[in-house]
């Protein structure tokens, strides 16, 4: 097995995470990400007795909430925490494609 990820693999992960990486970083991540991945892959060797406990390692079920309206935030307070807004709308740089 190779001891590093390919440039394309690292580029793909960077793209999904919306981060830019320099050439130096590329070198570093190709190796480090591979090491992390190998560690995580060890989980695959463990015999899983109960899938359920891997997902939620406690025996308590979800407590279901009654469908009753509670406190909500004032739109004014919400908008105070955003860099830009237009009227009551939160404004972000244009994103297309969805």
């Amino acid at each position: 097995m190779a001891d590093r990820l390919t440039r394309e693999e690292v580029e793909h992960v960077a793209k999904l995470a919306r981060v830019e990486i320099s050439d130096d970083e590329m070198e570093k991540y190709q190796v480090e990400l591979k090491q992390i991945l190998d560690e995580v892959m060890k989980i695959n060797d463990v015999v899983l007795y109960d899938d359920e406990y891997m997902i939620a390692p406690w025996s308590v079920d979800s407590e279901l909430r009654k469908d009753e309206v509670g406190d909500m935030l004032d739109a004014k307070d919400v908008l105070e925490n955003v860099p830009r807004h237009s009227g009551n709308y939160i404004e972000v740089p244009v994103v297309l494609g969805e």
Partner: protein
Amino acid sequence: MSNYIPTIGIEVHVELKTNTKIFSNAINGYGMGANTLTNVIDLGYPGTLPTINKEVIRQAIKAATVLNCEIRKDMHFDRKNYFYPDNPKNYQITQFNTPIGHDGYVLIEVDGVEKKIEIEEMHIEEDTCKSAHRGNVTLLDFNRAGVPLIEIVTKPCISSSEEAKLYIEKLREILLYAGISDCKMEEGSMRCDANVSIRPKESAPYGTKVEIKNIGSISNVGLSIQKEIMRQEKIYNNNETITPQTRRFDSKLNDTVLMRVKETGNDYRYFPEPDIPFIHLTDEDIREATKDIPMLPDERRKIYINKGITRVNSDKIINHREMSDFLNSFIESDLDFVVASNLLLGDIASYLNKTNKMLKDTLLSKEKFVVLVEKVKDNKLTSKNVKDIIEDIMEKDLTIDDIIEEKGITNITDNSIIESIVDKIIEDNMESVEDYKNGHDRSIKYLMGQIMKETKGQAEPRITMQLLKEKLDSLK
């Protein structure tokens, strides 16, 4: 006729009717000021934890049941990871591994033949915020963030745009009747994406899948798929290759347009949502959730058609939920459903339309309706009579007999009386009779008018017309 076989799968998102959101107790509402229906959970503030709305689980169990799905009793949620401003947590909470429903179906009728549209799975998830693109900015409204959704995914078993449209119509009808969603495509509470591919013949491998997103109305479901099939056929015919992509239907261009080249599912890096423990449904949970499911449209249609109502009229009644429920309250009685449905779809419907009322806003009681149907059936009331008294029936707290008396309606239904009047009119209008004999069919209407004038409109029209025709034909 096309040389290619289309393969279509459809994904439908439906917003559930609940008071609050799926993971927070903010209001699940539409049409309010932007960002007025949110709390810290919907906005993905650090340190907040989701709690599941019981009603969402209940509605999802109902949906799985009416869509004939198997229900998964042990389930959890998963995170679908992606960076996009419509979701500040950078993941959407959904069900990837354990969808609540699977292996269901919806029955549609294609050219009189029943077809099963198979449902692969049905899962629960949260809606994202609504974004609107304006020039070089995007505007976000988080009122929709966290609204409970179910996503219903068919197998690729739909083979025409017509079938797709029928499926959506049927799905909508069922979900509306079960009270799961208000299914308004124009308001986005029901949204539809379609996966379309074509192949040259049945034995060929499936073609490249193209996704059409955000189809905004039922008629556009059929239209957009039709256009996409045509587009793919053209590419095939030019010996070019179809690339996997996402397109959207542009109702102005009346065609599908490219949105983006598609990412693969792996890029979402699904993993179990650690903030929400497992959910274990019991038989009792399922019984409780499904106990108030009303009779569904297909069963109603069957009963109506059995009772003699035409297919078209059965559909019309089913389209009018309140009317259908009203009519259903007589299923066990021997009420004449044909007469009853004609009255409901005729004078009663036009009264409701004109006054913008629901049946429940009127004084039409079950008892009054039974008497009305009987009187129409026995020709004691003519269709003209019904038109004359419909307002009184709907608005006055009087019996049908009281209304008839008050309006002074006396119909001449005695054959011998009508016959003598017919004879008199024929004698007085020999010219018109001659015209009729010479093939001027219209003159019978003139004669009929004379009879009505003579009787002040009280001669029962069906009997009168029959007698008049017999008399005239015997003179020929």
